[in-house]
């Protein structure tokens, strides 16, 4: 069995190191992308929550009970001022 030559050894060490670094990079990127995704999803959920609470607030402001309590009653029609037709 012959010993590897010096350049070959250096190449193998560089290759292994490179592979290791690339793997770590991929892993880090995957983790970062996943975290970004989780954050975006959480943000989307909060926005949806917010939108829904605004919708519900609107519902509570336009429902018949609120309007009857807060709007003045319509004026009674004045029968003395009915328009006469000829």
């Amino acid at each position: 069995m012959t010993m590897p030559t010096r350049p070959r050894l250096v190449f193998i060490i560089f290759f292994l190191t490179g592979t290791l670094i690339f793997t770590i990079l991929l892993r880090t990127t995957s983790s970062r992308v996943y975290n970004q995704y989780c954050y975006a999803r959480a943000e989307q959920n909060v926005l949806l929550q917010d939108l829904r609470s605004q919708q519900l607030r609107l519902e509570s402001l336009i429902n018949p009970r609120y309007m009857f309590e807060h709007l003045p009653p319509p004026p009674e029609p004045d029968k003395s001022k009915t328009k006469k037709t000829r």
Partner: protein
Amino acid sequence: MRLKITIIALGIVLVTAMGLLGWRLYVLQFVKAETFAQDSQRQQTATFTQYARRGTIFDSRGNVLAASNTADEVFIEPRRLPNPEDVKETAMVLQDILHLPGPEICRLVYDSKNKGYVKIQSGIDLAQRQAIMNARLTGVGIQSQRLRYYPMGILTSHIVGFCGAEGMGLAGLELKYEDVLKGADGKEVVLVDVNRKPIGFRPDLYKPPFPGQNLILTIDSTIQQFVRAALQDKMKEYEAESAIGIMMDPYTGAILAMVSLPDFDPERFNTEKPDRLKNRILTDPYEPGSIIKPIVAAIALDSGHIGYREVFYCEDGYWGKYRIGEFGNHRYGNFTVREILIQSSNVGMAKIGLKMGQKRLYDGLRLFGFGQKTDIDLPGEDPGLLYPVSKWSGYSVTRIPFGHEILVNAIQMLRAYAILANGGSRVTPHIVKAVVDSQGNITQLHEAAGPTGFVIKPEVAHWIVRNALAGVVNEGTGEKAALEGVQVWGKTGTANIALPTGGYDTSNYVASFVGGAPAVNPKVVVMVSIRKPNRALNKGYSGGRVAAPVVGEILKKTMPYIEKGL
């Protein structure tokens, strides 16, 4: 020789050891493989429940009556902050993020009896959430809460009901339709690192949540508001104990409005007195008094035991033989059945009961649905009480025709009037028009079944409504329900309240009016009962005085609303 023995012994030990090792490997690989795989999975993954959104409840016009949302809530775990200094430091950080005074946060923590959880603020936004996460405060956490909102508040509280802390329906439609509304929770499995920090998905184990289905009711919030406002004003005016009001479509049994006062705020139901949580329309049967008279008269006319023009002598106000007197000590002479109903004569009704006989009276009342549940789709209905004939006394056949010795709930009574209004057909009262899934597909539809057989002949039902009950409003005790331009019909009732100890309360009454409009092809039937109006006010306490104007007020607003299709 000795060496040989040693080698053999070592060989045996070695073989045994190898055998044991092989056995262990076999156990690990085949016997306990699944357990270890599961343990490994558990260590490498974390499971998050994805809560299904509870279904929304809408009224017939699409107004939201109940809906769910989630909100993030900041909490502190006081047992992890044993020193007051730690609490102060945490409060100082939180006050800048939550815009809540630090001393207030400290007070919440110090005053809390629960050392595991103190709610600090609910409904925080994304920036606040991120700031709290970044601050990495000991004993501070964020929890997502599922909340149920009721935009109409107290207006429909007894119909919709409420949900408990776990999001489960505890009353009203929320309870009755729990299985339909709740949906099914999903789960998400993620891969985690050694610190349990998520690093990736397990899509193969993902189970999506299945949202709950939505309910569309027959209730119209605008009519509900008309009924509640009129009822509340009268209840306040007469300082009454409680009041109920219901409106129904007589042809389909659809409930258009249902109000029981006192009512409650469904978002704060746990702070209300239990008495306010009762839907008295369903849970409190009572002796109906005179409002049952048209039903009994219709049964007698339908069976041919009495005639439209037959005259009954009303004993000049008191029938000694059966110990029956008239309300208000009126003295009546000869009356036809129409006049008996218009003047609400107890003696006249007792004579109709006697002429009809026990069996026919009992059978007729059962056909009208008394003494049995109406099967309305709300929980807690009391079937009332109609004793079988075998338990009747000699007086019962004279008492039941004017509303004693029988217990009814308000839905039963309104349904009986709906039968008169629609020409004699039985209807099933219901409050849910349709169940719709999250995609908008109808999964259940309560269609009007149409006439399902006549309880009484149409001509009898029409005569009672158009002739006798319209007469009650035009000439009799119900004149305060009359309206211009539309023929209102109905019957008043001033019922005694039976005491648990026996006998009747002589100072308190239930004032009622049941009726509808118009007389031909009625659009609606309405019932109003006001319990214990204060007699000391000297404003009156009878059904004609207290309840009839409320029905008039309700119909005055509702009829144009329905006719114009607003």
